[in-house]
């Protein structure tokens, strides 16, 4: 009788723990911790440097990959950082493949077209230019701020102001 209760109790703790671990990838905080750790380790010990704090970036790594391909095929002589000069940085490929794998595994994969694709194309171009100007996509700006980069802190302030401004103007446009 006692043994039975004890076993069932331990069973409950076990399944509870397993359920909590399986829910962990859904947490944004878990994402933040893992992404920062992975980026720091890759930048410090796995050759994704220099420049400093370069472990994770969608804009700079994308630029390095695009320019690496053009340099290799057209001999274009475009700028590539020291990290991605001899071998390509495949972070952006990993991002798309990893997310595609996660979506397929959980039944969330599917082609969705909500329109406005020409507009999105233009937004993408402007975002890339702005990101390369301030030295990284928002994720890398946060990484560089953690690294102790004052310029990145300024850029982060600018991004935060831009997000608030855009959100308020979107709300204003929607409620008009």
């Amino acid at each position: 009788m006692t043994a039975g209760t004890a076993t069932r109790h331990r069973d409950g703790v076990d399944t509870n723990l397993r359920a909590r671990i399986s829910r962990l990838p859904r947490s944004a905080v878990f994402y933040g911790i893992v992404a920062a750790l992975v980026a720091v380790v890759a930048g410090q010990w796995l050759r994704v440097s220099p420049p400093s704090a370069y472990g994770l970036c969608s804009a700079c790594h994308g630029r390095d990959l695009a320019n690496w391909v053009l340099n290799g095929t057209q001999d274009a002589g475009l700028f590539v950082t020291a990290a991605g000069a001899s071998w390509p940085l495949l972070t952006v490929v990993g991002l798309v493949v990893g997310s595609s794998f996660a979506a397929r595994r959980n039944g969330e994969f599917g082609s969705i077209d909500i329109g406005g694709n020409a507009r999105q194309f233009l937004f993408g171009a402007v975002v890339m230019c702005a990101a390369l100007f301030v030295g990284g996509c928002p994720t890398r700006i946060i990484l560089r701020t953690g690294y102790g980069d004052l310029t990145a802190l300024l850029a982060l302030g600018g991004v935060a102001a831009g997000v608030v401004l855009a959100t308020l103007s979107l709300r204003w446009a929607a409620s008009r």
Partner: protein
Amino acid sequence: MIVSLSSLAVGLIVGYLGQRSRMCTVGGLRDFVLVRDTALLKGVGALLVTAWIAFGAVRLVAETDAGNGLIAAGTTPTGLRVVAAVVVGGLVLGFVATVSGACPLRQHVLAGQGRVGAWAFLAGFYLAAVVYTSWIAPHIGWWAV
């Protein structure tokens, strides 16, 4: 060789978790301003705090190019012109990324799960990368790399 493998691994891990958590760096502040939802904002905070602690820990155990102080060497902006330019650049980045719906990293994740608009965004994104390095950067230089 190592850099390709490690960056691919970083991308796979972050892409997987990014799809599961719907994490977006501009989404954090946007959701907070719009509906007072702090779930994504906590993720942004965790990213910043973990990066700060991890870079500090690396400074203790290994040789880095960051120096010893809290502020990394050689990152202080020189003059008001640079400060204004970087803040305005950030402002444009934040504004347009929010209007387009997600930060660049989240657009990669959305492209992976099949959003057509995200593929259009990425097409403009990579075209602009080449345009910027070929024609814009030679005129204004690389302000921050």
